Structures are given as C-alpha cells and as structure tokens.
C-alpha cells in the first residue's frame, strides 16, 4: 500500500517540461457526469443494497409498519415500467421502496426534482447513492428529460415518478402533469399506479423530521396507453386509477399473436408511424 502511494506520488511530474512528441492533454473520456451513471453501477449498487436493507427498510418498518396491497402486479411485470404515485411527503419514497419487491426495488431509479435535490452537489450525490435518484427537470425542456428517462427505461430500469410534480399540502391527490403520458407513449412502457396513504402524517410538508404513524401502500394493475389516446388523456387515466386505489379498485390485459404482444408491449401504432415520419 505504502509503496503504491509512493509510486503514484513520485510518478507524475506535472510541472516539468514535456517533450515535443507528447500530445496535448485532453480529458479523453467524454463527459457523462450529469447522468449519474456511477449510482447505477457496482460497487455503488451493492453499497445501496446494504444501506437500504440494513438501515432504511428496518427504519421504515419501525416508523410506519406499512401495509402493502397488490405487490404481485410488480412481480408480474416482464419489462421495465413507469411507477406513478401520489406525493404528499418526503416519507412517500421510503414507503414506496419498502412496498416494492426486492428485485424491482434494485432495478428502480427515482426521478428527483433537479431544482430541489440537485442544487447542492453533495446532497445530489447522497440521494443518488441512497435512493438511486436522477435529476428530473420540472422546468427545463421536455425533450432532454424524455430522452434520458427513455434511455433508462430501455436499459431495463423501472422509473419511479411523482406526476403531481410537487408534494400535496393537504395529502389529497392533485392533478397529474401530462409528462407521465408523454413518457409512456414515447417508450411504450406500462405505467403502474400506486397510492400511498399515511406519508403525510409521518412527515408533512414543512416538517424536517419524521414521527411514527401507520401507512398503507396500494399497487394497481399496470396500465398501457391505447391506440389514439393522447398523452394528456392517458395521464388523466393514470390519475383516475390512483384515485380509485385511494378508494379501493382495478382492470384487464392482452394476449395473442406476436404482433399483438409486441404492440401491447410497445408504443401504439400511431406513435410508431409518427416517429417514423
């Protein structure tokens, strides 16, 4: 160890004159720092697994003893999905991660507000390490966000987003923004609606620490955008589904030839044709 450090310390002579044959210095590696790829690579994944299994999940259990319904819908997923949940508290994310089956949790990235969590670099890195978040712009151009999010979905990651855009002040479900619809139509990914109840009592907006309170998480049947359904209409359907879960209900899915399965698993033909033109 000591020899290695000495070798490295003495090995580089930054201040010395370089021979003319040496090329200009260059970073050589394209800058990809903004996508936080390290947070989804080893050994960070293993570290996160340890943090969650060893700290977050037991803590969540002690604080909320969450009752989870519908986890089988997550287990039935055969491809990456968009997980859309209501949002009333910072505690919601912990409750959601608690509710997901192990395999799904390890493959879930969380869209975190870029203007809130990523203003301070250390905080951004910390939440990326702990919760596998990535910066999701609430104000910037939709194209860049869509592109990055669809890349993650195509790479096999579930994408957890809060379509309301911000925490609800009174715990009631607010109107969903159409982004979830755009993303689902662009990528063809199914959307899993989830309703979290109780987060607001654990840590309401404005309070900096959690207090124990019971919580329930209800996971609904995955939804797929239909043929001519617009992004806004689909976002509305997801919102209704979350509201129904809050009250307590669900719907059916597709089987048939490979073309039907392919269509069901991907963007509707209208979108494919538009993409092609």
């Amino acid at each position, binding site marked *: *160890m000591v020899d*290695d*450090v000495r*070798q*490295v310390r003495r*090995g*580089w*002579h930054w201040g*010395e*004159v*370089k*021979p003319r*044959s*040496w*090329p*200009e*210095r*260059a*970073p*050589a*590696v*394209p800058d*990809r*720092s903004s996508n936080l*790829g*390290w947070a989804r*690579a*080893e*050994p960070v994944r293993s570290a996160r697994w340890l943090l969650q299994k060893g700290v977050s999940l037991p803590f969540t259990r002690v604080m909320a003893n969450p009752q989870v319904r519908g986890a089988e819908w997550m287990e039935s997923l*055969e*491809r*990456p999905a968009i997980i859309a949940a209501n949002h009333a508290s910072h505690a919601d994310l912990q409750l959601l991660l608690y509710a997901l089956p192990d395999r799904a949790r390890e493959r879930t990235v969380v869209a975190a507000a870029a203007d809130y969590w990523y203003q301070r670099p250390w905080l951004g890195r910390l939440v990326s390490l702990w919760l596998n978040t990535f910066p999701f712009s609430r104000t910037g151009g939709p194209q860049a966000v869509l592109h990055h999010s669809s*890349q993650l979905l*195509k*790479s*096999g990651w579930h994408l957890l987003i809060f379509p309301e855009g911000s925490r609800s002040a009174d715990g009631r479900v607010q109107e969903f923004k159409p982004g979830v619809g755009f993303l689902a139509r662009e990528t*063809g990914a199914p959307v899993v609606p989830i309703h979290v109840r109780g987060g607001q009592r654990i840590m309401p907006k404005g309070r900096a620490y959690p207090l124990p309170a019971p919580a329930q998480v209800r996971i609904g049947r995955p939804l797929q955008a239909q043929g001519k359904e617009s992004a806004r209409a689909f976002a509305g359907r997801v919102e209704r589904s979350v509201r129904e879960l809050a009250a307590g209900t669900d719907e059916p899915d597709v089987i048939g*030839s*490979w*073309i039907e*399965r*392919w*269509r069901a*698993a*991907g963007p509707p*033909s209208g979108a*494919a044709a538009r993409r*092609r033109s």
Partner: protein
Amino acid sequence: MSRPGAVLEVDRNSPPTLFHFGEGVRLERLPLGSRILYPPDPLEPIAHPERAIRRALAHPLDDDPLKDLLRPGMKLTIAFDDLSLPLPPMAQPDVRQLVMEEVVELAAEAGVEDIHLIVATGLHRRMTEDEIRHIVGDRIFTTFWPDCLYNHDAEDEGENVRIGQTSDGHEVTLNRRAAESDLVVYVNLTLVPMDGGHKSMATGLASYRGIRAHHNVETLLGSRSYMHPPDSQLHHSCIQQGRLIEDHVRVFHIETSVNNHAFPTVANFMQKRETDWTPADQATYLALKQLSDFAPRDLKRTIFHSMKAPYGLTGVNAGQVDQVHERTLDVVRKQMTVEVDGQTDIVTMGLPYLGPYNVNSILNPVLVVCLGLGYLFNLYRGRPVVREGGVVIMTHPCRYEFDSVHHPSYIDFYDEVLADTTDPGQIESKYERRFAEDDWYRQLFRKSHAYHGVHPFYAWYWAAHALDHVGDVIVVGGEREVVHRLGFKAATTLADAFEMAEQTVGRYPSVSHLRTPPLLLADVR
C-alpha cells in the same frame, strides 16, 4: 474532435505505465526510450442512434429498403452476434437492441407473422436467458422468448443443412431455419476489423463441419494478420463460404460500429493515457490496486465483470454485405489505427480480465494465450509490432483456474494435450477430431452452457502465427508451473523479464508497449 492514436517515447519525466494484470492493475516503469502505443480517443458518437438506424434501413447500400423486402406470409429470420462482442459488454441499451427493435417494428407493420430471432453463437456457448435479455432488451425478450428467440445449435443434426462446397472444396453448412427463410436479417456489431462481413453468417450460423474450413492451423498461419482482412486467409475462406450462402438465401446485413469508450466512469483511468491522469484518476487507481491485491478472487471477478461499457454508436450501415462491411471497416479503422515506425525487439502487453470467450467467466491459461498471442499480437496491419525472433512479455497471474461449466474441454486440453505438446500443428493432427466429436462435450455444448469440445483448439490455433513468429514469450507474475506448461518462461517482475529477454534479443533491446485496452490497430510501416 478526438485525438488520433499516438506513440510516446518514455523519458525521465514520463509517468509510470498502466499494465492490466488479470483482475487487477499495476504501474510499471518501462526502460527509457521505450515507446508506448496509445489508441485514438473515443470518436464522437452519433447523437440520435434510433434516427440513424431508421435512415440506414430506409436507404440501404446497393439494396432495397428493408420495408420493401417484408411482406405478409413470408418467413423472416433475424440473426445477431452473441456476447463475445463487444468487450466489455455494452451498457444497456445495446445497439443490437436498438437495431432489432426497428426491424421488428417494420415486420409488425408489414404483417410478417413467421419471425424467429437466433443468437449466432457458432461454436460458442449458449447464452443464458439474462444474457440474451441484456442484448435484445425487455420488449423483444418478452415478445419472443423462448419459442421464437433462441440460441443457434451447431450440433443439432436436424437443424443444420449442408449448403454446398466452395471452389476450394470446403463444406458450407447453415442453420436450417435461416436456410429456409425468405429473408435473413443479420444484425452485427463490429468491434475490431476481424468481425463482421461474410464471417458473421459463415461462422455464427454454421456447424463444426463448416467452421473447421477456416479455423485451422494452416489458414491461421496464413492470416497476417486477421485484423487486416485483405491479408487474411481466414477472411478469404469466410468470403467464399459467405458468397455461397448468399446464393442460397437472401441476406440483408446491418452492421454497427461503436467507439472505444470501453470503461464506465468508475474506471476512467483505464481509458486515459497516463499523461492525462488527474489526481482523481490516481486515487481511483490506488483504490482498485488495493482491491485487486487484497480482495478474494470471486469478489474481484464479480466487480470486474459487472463493468459495462458506455460505448457510443459510431456507424450503422445496411444492405449488401460487401459495401456495408467496407463502410463499417472505415469507421473501425479510424477508431483504432495508430501509425508506428518499424518493429521492435520486445513487445510488452498487460492482459486484462476479459477476452471474447470468458464473458462472466474465468480467463483460464489457454485463454490467456489466446488473448495475448492470438488477439493482441495480431492487432497490426502490415508487419507485427515485434520483429521476427523477438520477445513478447505479458503480465497476467495465469493461474490453474477453469470454469467447469463454460470450459470443460479446456480443462482436458490443458491437462492432457498441452502435457504432450504445444505445437499447434501436432495438436491439430493428433487430438482435434477426438475432442470435436466427443459425446460428453457435445452434450454439455447443447444442453448446458459449455463451449464446443473443439474450442480450446481454436483458441490455441489463434496463437499459431505469434508462436511461429516470436523467439520467446515471458509471462510476468504467472504461476510458474502453468506458464511452463504453456511453453513459456515465467518472470517475477518486469525488470526480470527484460533481463531474461536480453538473452534472446541481445543487450539494449528496443521496446514497444501496447497500451490496451481500449483496443488499437498498429499500422506498422
């Protein structure tokens, strides 16, 4: 604008040089005056891969748009390269996934009902479910697995057909489904100039009877090098077979190339020239060095093999194979070529943890030879970097360590064949047929995830040209008994290796170091 490849001379100000050492790394001091060959920096990737792919399919080279070739009622087969490409495996989404999603979408629009996707494994091992899913993506996998998405089986008598014979008298075989299809779409990923072209179909969907036509000592000795197809008998033979296949079945080729961005952010320092290292790179190196010195082997292997490369797509071409391949090679050469003046007495190379045949597995001693003397030695155009009779020095722990699931025939090859002789010609005539036709290896190849019984022979033949060319091979850091079994010399340190090499090439030898990976192609003048 990325920098081109470079040859740097070691002087007193030069930082130490990175050597890969299996699942580990080392910094070594090369003698003053040695030259280090660096590959070009990664080329700028195509900004919108999906758009480029759609354009390539709509405007193919010397062929009709793919859309016009698809019709209801036809039999369509999509074949694609297996996990031996690229190295390390590509982070998702793999470019083959992006290409195949477009092809399948076109097929769905055209109403093609009979479609199969085949992993063109040739004599490589069957890929696992997870490995296939990683390459094709979730959407294709859930739609087609397992009935219409599967591995090629080169040993299934009923599922391989004889297409005919080339003018040289070599037999040509092909996967039955592909042979009976109205259209075969081959989706390739070309990492080095050896890949792609006619070789894709002629090896990927063939059986042992077809592949042995070019995977033999005579052909490989006549391939100088097989990284430069015009001077490669291996490729001439594949072209003959490929043309015969094209006469028999309609093939639409799609070739992709990627840049050499081979390491994820955590291992950036491996990608960079030492002169570009920052303090952060030095710190990462130190951390990885300690890990590789002290961590258990299994943990190291898990960490190294979990690295996925963030390659960027640099080219996608579709259409007739010759035109497509020429375009692809232009980009690949641009990414790899470094111009070198003359040969040297000694070539040094640090062997990494990964070669084409040990993805998610162990680089056993036979594969060490295949990687060093087969692949890295042959990364040249014109003349080898080391002069005839010169010395190759490789760094690798070279342990007696095998993966019994993936490489069962390698174990017997090492224990039985190499104990007798290391001469490729003798090995071929005396042992090849027995291993190739062994029922147990055949069973493991077909039902488990083992490489074909003959595969260790091919790995060894791959090094035939180097063994014929060099005067000595020294392995630094290798287990002495293993290195001797391979027919080489073992050294403890690089300095010792240079000392030993002087006995072969004389005092004050000239030295070149191949700083790879990322891979380079030395254009030796």
